[in-house]
């Protein structure tokens, strides 16, 4: 029967066999609950922002008018139910771009006519790649990167990702050398490089790009005459210095230049506002052709008009947005500090970071050997023995074993404290030499391990399986 389906249906490019997702499966089977399952696995692999719902809920209680599909007391249900214009609700786009400006300290201005609404950043990224690349083309992405990109950028588009290898030697910053090497690798693989895609602030690093990196990227894409996509989904989570610099700020210096048309931003409300369920994504571009094409493509994943309306009211409330942005940052900063200091007490350091909903944790010293196999063994221990679902660096295509992404904003303070205690206990047990053998406990079932091994093998050789398109 699998022969009856498309190549896309039968290949593994959706990336769902990745450990990133496997850890979730294990969590689903045994999820931590403070009262009902205190021994369960704590979810630290999910980059969600759960810290500021009270602010949203209190806004709702003061703005009941919009709740019942009403505007100024009058029902607009009919209008909303019928509204399927792929140009999007004008008041929502206006409010959204203003929110994006506010997040960037009003240092840039966005034109609502240049924004395309999509069903989440997942759809925004895919749509943008559909517009920029096709089979035989490559997008360069700095490692480590968000595991979902393998699915979002490659699966149905047919494009390829070639990594720009970044290392801990300089805090995983992008270098000119790494860019050139990646470009060369693409050429060696007979791939046409169409662009570079960066996430800024970075997932999984939690860092914001330096001015030097941004300038380097601009120089690179100008020289190679390629595109730059900046996924700025975490732009509202920058909680401490250095200040955030969006690519749009850098681009403002190039207004009349050719490169003006080749820089695009992806955004979403899933992280900053903590609303992943609402599927609100956006593409922003100065390139009219891309806006036109992406707008038509957005037909395949529009934002529900019900959601657009609610958010247009929320984001138009400037008092709310100002307070939310600042309060949200404060809470993220505090939570980040809790995790970092907790880990420090356990002798574990993190990459210094100022953004995101996670820390990039250095557990290289806990590896039996400097290999990904050792990383996998450590990860298994952490999932099954320590009972924490964290994301191993390999799943983020990190080139060095031993790094893990640990989320901190998707749980209560109490739960974070428990997680930290568990890690501390684990590290202590390791140093006492009470290292539990994996084989004895058989915590990871054989199938799962085979899946993971196969995936690790494939990633290491940057190969697609035979039969994949």
């Amino acid at each position, binding site marked *: 029967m699998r022969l009856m389906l498309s190549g896309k249906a039968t290949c593994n490019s959706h990336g769902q066999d990745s450990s990133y997702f496997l850890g979730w499966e294990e969590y689903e089977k045994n999820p931590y609950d403070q009262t009902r399952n205190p021994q369960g696995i704590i979810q630290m692999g999910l980059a969600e922002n759960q810290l500021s719902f009270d602010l949203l809920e209190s806004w709702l209680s003061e703005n009941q008018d919009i709740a019942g599909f009403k505007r100024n007391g009058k029902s607009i249900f009919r209008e909303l139910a019928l509204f399927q*214009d792929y140009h999007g609700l004008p008041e929502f786009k206006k409010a959204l771009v203003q929110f994006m400006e506010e997040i960037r300290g009003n240092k840039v201005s966005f034109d609502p006519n240049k924004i395309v609404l999509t069903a989440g950043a997942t759809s925004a990224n895919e749509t943008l790649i559909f517009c920029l690349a096709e089979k035989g083309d490559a997008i360069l992405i700095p490692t480590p990167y968000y595991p979902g990109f393998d699915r979002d950028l490659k699966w149905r588009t047919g494009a390829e990702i070639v990594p720009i290898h970044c290392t801990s030697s300089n805090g995983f910053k992008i270098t000119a050398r790494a860019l050139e090497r990646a470009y060369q690798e693409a050429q060696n693989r007979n791939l046409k490089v169409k662009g570079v895609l960066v996430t800024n602030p970075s997932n999984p690093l939690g860092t914001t790009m330096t001015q030097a990196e941004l300038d380097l990227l601009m120089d690179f894409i100008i020289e190679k005459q390629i595109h730059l996509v900046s996924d700025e989904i975490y732009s509202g989570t920058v909680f401490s210095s250095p200040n955030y610099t969006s690519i749009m700020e850098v681009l403002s210096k190039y207004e009349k230049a050719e490169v003006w048309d080749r820089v695009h931003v992806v955004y979403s409300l899933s992280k900053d506002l903590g609303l992943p369920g609402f599927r609100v994504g956006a593409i922003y571009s100065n390139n009219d052709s891309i806006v036109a094409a992406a707008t038509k493509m957005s037909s395949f*994943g529009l*934002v529900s008009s019900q959601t657009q309306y609610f958010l247009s009211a929320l984001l138009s409330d400037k008092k709310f947005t100002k307070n939310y942005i600042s309060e949200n940052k404060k809470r993220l900063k505090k939570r980040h500090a809790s995790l970092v200091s907790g880990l420090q007490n356990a002798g574990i350091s993190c990459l210094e970071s100022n953004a995101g909903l996670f820390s990039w944790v250095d557990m290289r010293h806990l590896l039996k050997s400097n290999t990904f196999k050792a990383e996998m063994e450590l990860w298994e221990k952490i999932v099954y023995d320590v009972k924490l679902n964290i994301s191993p660096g390999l799943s983020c295509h990190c080139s060095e074993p031993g790094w893990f992404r640990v989320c901190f904003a998707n749980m209560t303070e109490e739960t974070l404290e428990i997680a930290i205690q568990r890690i501390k206990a684990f590290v202590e047990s390791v140093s006492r030499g009470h290292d539990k053998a994996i084989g004895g406990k058989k915590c990871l079932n054989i199938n799962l391990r085979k899946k993971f091994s196969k995936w690790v093998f494939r990633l290491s050789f940057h190969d697609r399986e035979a039969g994949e398109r």
Partner: protein
Amino acid sequence: MSYVSSNRKPLLSRKATNDGHAEKSPYFDGWKAYDKDPFNPTQNPSGVIQMGLAEHQLCFDLVQEWLVSNPEASICTKKGVDKFRDIALFQDYHGLPAFRNAVAKFMGRVRGDKVKFDPDRIVMSGGATGAHEMITFCLADPGDAFLVPTPYYAGFDRDLCWRTEARLLPVVCHSSNNFKVTRKALEEAYAKAVEANISVKGLLLTNPSNPLGTILDRDTLREAMSFINEKNIHLICDEIYAATVFRQPDFISIAEIIEEDQEYNRNLVHIIYSLSKDMGFPGFRVGIVYSYNDAVVECGRKMSSFGLVSSQTQYLIASMLSDDQFIGKFLLESAGRLATRHNDFTDGLCQVGIKCLNGNAGLFLWMDLRGLLMDSTVEAETALWRVIINDVKLNVSPGSSFHCSEPGWFRVCIANMNEETTKVALARIREFVLRNGNKPNRKEKCWQSDLRLRLSFRRIDDVLRSPCIMSPHSPIPQSPLVRTRT
């Protein structure tokens, strides 16, 4: 903006720059006339009436009433806000269980509870538009083809072909047998594909039909099942208009046919559904892929990440569709109002000698104006269409935009307006016919040829050069499309 940089490297993909979005079709031309001069009973009573948009606007009062009585269905109200956080966080591509259960139950009810749907086979998508693209990505590789009976919904060219690079091959149907989908036509289309070395992956049926407004009878459905089983190809049934059946005969879903014979290969059957037509909620983007094939459900679910239904909307829909009493009342009332509207139009048209295909479903009529054509060509149809838009001021859709093989048919949407506008539209048609034809009690044939002659004396040149309408062959980029679906 140049698509090519100074050293001739193409900057954008082919998909971004080709016409795969199918918006250059003449189908979308009429929209421009409407957008420039939209009818409004008080502010613009002589404007163009929109009859090109297949929307169901007849039952919003019922839904609004339900919303007022059920504030907890919205996570934004005081009654519902305790769910806000959980719903806002919910991005699981399996969808809210309550949503899937409610949709499965609703689909069963719409089919008179003659079949049951399994909530675990329900996969979300970005409207039916997203559903069609997604199922195509699951079933077809670039270059593969789907057979589709003509006339068919113009959006399929984009939905099934644009980014997927699949293709559509017509199964030509004729008015001589009321556009029935015959086994002969299926076999011919298939043979033609084989001869051209095109790999056929499946057959796409829309039942009830857009634009015909008819349902497929049991024999046709059985033939289709037998055909796809024999050829070992997929069957995609778009049942988006299932609840718009307003009169006998009863709707028969492919889900019913599957149960009739254990020999049928269920793995080949997939249903596309949406709430855009039956409930009138196109803005909420609730698309569904229901597949009997486990591998398709699994793959489809992963792909649904690209077009999930907003959890806020899932929650509202789950609540609404689970209200058995409300749904019972809604379905009954909706069918009744559609029947009345349908009768109002067909009676009114009949009075001036205009016939429609005998239909019992959909939100439109398939109007027969072949008698008014100067000759049986697409050009003549287009000329007549421009007269209807410019003179009669009704935006209707010409059959050619639905790939109809016979010129002279027009789709006229009738459920997207209130009663007052209905009367205005009918009055305009009557007035146009009377102005250009003879008395309405004349024998049909004579009347039609008189009207045709009169039309031929019109200054067609004027019409063609009308600034309101661009030629379908105009190279000027047109983007009148503001709807994703008609």
